[in-house]
């Protein structure tokens, strides 16, 4: 299954109002890799992720998923391959019940009734939210919403998981259990985040974006120890790598 590759070639993007957000972005992520995308607010992380499932497309540069370039003919297949979990779970959950929400993707893919039900149950089971099946999403806690959001994507059995700030708004315990859950997934993972400690836990590789350009791309450990590099990109050394002030 070596075709779960995500590749961007000289990608540039300008919003219709003239804001230039991505400038000549190139990278190649291979099968099974976990990659963190970090950078200050407004650096362009979310915009970059929206290119990976073809929601946004640029006149300049291209995105390849596997061997396919994203275009009209491949887009439906690509949206199945690339599961996208958005920053705010309230945007992701829009159906009257958790079941309906998790079934939304598989129904659009045209699976049979039985297959859809199986997929919903399996995905909810994986994220530990099976008992929430008949609850309306707007009544769930932040952690539960996040778990269900992930299930809505898992039910389409994607090969690549793309997540925008999955740990934001989570309490320490929910954050821990989410990290534990993501660790178990064997998908190719691309995670945009401000939570550098999580990046350190989950991703061997990190891409740093600053004002729409890639300023660093390498091993997470190495990048996060480079105080100067982080400072230049408006970031800070994650707590776990900081020298302990008490013990010196």
């Amino acid at each position, binding site marked *: 299954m070596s075709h779960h590759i995500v590749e961007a070639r000289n990608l540039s993007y300008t919003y219709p109002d003239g804001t230039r957000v991505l400038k000549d972005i190139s990278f190649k992520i291979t099968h099974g890799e976990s990659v963190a995308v970090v950078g200050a607010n407004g650096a362009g992380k979310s915009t970059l992720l929206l290119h990976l499932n073809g*929601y946004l497309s640029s006149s300049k540069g291209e995105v390849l998923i596997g061997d396919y370039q994203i275009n009209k003919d491949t887009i439906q297949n690509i949206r199945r391959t690339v599961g*996208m979990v*958005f920053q705010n779970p309230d*945007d992701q959950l829009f*159906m009257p019940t958790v079941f309906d929400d998790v079934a939304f993707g598989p*129904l*659009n*893919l045209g699976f049979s009734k039985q297959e859809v039900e199986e997929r919903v149950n399996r995905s909810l089971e994986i994220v530990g939210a099976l008992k929430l099946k*008949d609850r309306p999403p*707007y009544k769930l806690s932040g952690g539960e919403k996040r778990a269900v959001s992930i299930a809505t994507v898992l039910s389409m059995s994607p090969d690549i998981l793309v997540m925008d700030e999955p740990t934001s708004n989570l309490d320490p315990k929910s954050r821990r259990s989410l990290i534990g859950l993501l660790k178990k997934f064997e998908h190719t993972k691309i995670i945009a985040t401000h939570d550098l400690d999580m990046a350190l836990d989950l991703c061997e590789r990190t891409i740093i974006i600053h004002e729409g350009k890639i300023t660093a791309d390498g091993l997470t450990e190495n990048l996060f120890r480079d105080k100067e590099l982080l400072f230049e990109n408006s970031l800070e050394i994650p707590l776990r790598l900081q020298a302990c002030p008490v013990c010196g």
Partner: protein
Amino acid sequence: MSISTETIKLEIHALDVLSRGNSRIHRIDARIQLFVTVVFVLSVMSMSRYDIIALFPFFIYITAIIAIGGLPVISLIKKALLMSPFAIMIGIFNPFFDKTPYLNVYGLNITGGWLSFISIILRFFLTVEAGLILISVTGMYRICKALRQLGLPEVFVTQILFLYRYLFVLIEEGTGMIRAKELRVFNKRQNNLKLFGRMAGSLFLRTFNRAQRIYQAMVARGYKGEIKMLENSKINSVDIMYGIGWTMFFLAVRFYNIPVLMGSAVLKVFQ
């Protein structure tokens, strides 16, 4: 203010959840339910403006569906009351303009204006209840699917579905903004029209952005503008009987003043 918008949102959301119930009413095909509701609303709306007694049989429909569908009566009534200011606004001037005496009850003159005012309120209540009941037993998603099956163009149905979703988004964003404003406005005089205008503008933008993000999430999960359901229901003979039965009932109530006919029949028996 902020509390009440929050309640409206939760309560309308709750309606959609009710639609997952499994009573005999819930199992009627959505197209038939839609049709029955439309005939009901048209019949009620086209009643003469002074009718009050003749409206009462329409309550039989409301009561029957609530009873068979196991719907929460109190919360349905409360929802209609929340919207009643609109009806009062529409009808409030009638008593002032239309002063022709119509009835004389124990020496008290009741003018046509008052009659039509009460009639408007009743008709409004009936119509709103019929709509709420439709959403409660069918769910907005199934209603839209039914509209699609009835041949309405896809763009149009998608618009309705999104409008409904955006209603919540609007309420949600609005609630957040009002709360934020109340926490920062200390001087009551700051509460002026200009501030309100600016807030309305930014509410629009926020709603638009939020709606766009929801759309992104739908597209990301394979949404192509087509409404897919777990089960494609078929219209069976029970559904057809249901539709014909209610239609005949509504037409009878519309064209004959049944309470009056019944009254005079009873009088004849006793004479």
